[in-house]
């Protein structure tokens, strides 16, 4: 088992944990955190698999750094939207669609 596979599997594990949190929790902040964990997992897969076989591949690394900045900005935007939602409705979760 190579080192890159350890990173990739850790990323897959993080993704699964995040997915579980995203489904199991209803509170919007918890969901946002879970979503970020999923994102970190996929970044870890990209970076881990980028350095096997033919040496370090800079293309996935560049994609990941782009992704990290976008993830930070979208998290901040989600927080602004959640606050607005809480102020407007007084709820910390979204209504069930039945």
């Amino acid at each position: 088992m190579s080192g890159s596979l350890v990173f990739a599997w850790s990323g897959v594990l993080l993704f699964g944990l995040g997915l579980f949190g995203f489904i199991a929790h209803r509170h919007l902040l918890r969901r946002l955190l879970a979503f970020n964990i999923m994102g970190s997992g996929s970044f870890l897969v990209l970076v881990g698999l980028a350095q096997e076989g033919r040496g370090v591949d800079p293309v996935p690394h560049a994609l990941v750094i782009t992704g990290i900045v976008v993830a930070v900005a979208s998290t901040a935007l989600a927080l602004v939207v959640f606050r607005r939602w809480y102020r407007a409705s007084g709820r910390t979760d979204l209504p069930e669609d039945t």
Partner: protein
Amino acid sequence: MILRIVLAGLLCLGVTVALGWAVLERPMPVENLPERVASAMPESGVEHPITAVLLNFRSYDTLLEIAVLLVAVVVALALREAQPDQPEQMGLDNPLLRAVMAWLLPLILVVAGFLLWAGSYQPGGAFQAGSVLAAAGVLLRLAGVTTNWLDNALLMRAGLALGLLTFLGIGLLVMLPGVPFLTYPAAHAGTLILVIELTLTLSIGLTLLSLFRLTPPYADDPDDARPQEDRNL
């Protein structure tokens, strides 16, 4: 409720196992990307492969990423609460923090400049430098230093859009001799990339900082949800 958790757990376990299997059984990439990047390095204008990929070979990605950042901050500006953002509202009136900031701020600025410059030959670049700049701004806010100069609506918006506009402008300018969008001439690539990175650093720093400033700590009661006097930002 229990059933829901169990079902979700089973589903996620299945997804995780399937993904782990997929990682194990993945096909080897056909294209040898590291070699292609290495062979194109001399005409990229920088010496570090990741910076070359970010700002030359795949600069479309970076351009769109800056556009995403700008859209995020524009939406956040549109959704912001009409509320005064005063230094005392940050709630951290800590003299120690202020004293430490006086020592740290020059260091932080030097580190940001170094990261920006280092990007051409080692890990570093506009994103890292922009994040460090934003962190300096956040620390200043927490220390209660007034950042009213950020309230100048025109300057603020110009700063937020500067990175994207410069990037677009340079991308269009190089089209004049008849080459495709964002194809820098090899002779000037280094200078152009440095100019783009410099403006990107400022815009990224400002974007992250203003996303932070848009949600000052505030009584978040839903009952209190009536607009106060409007404010220019």
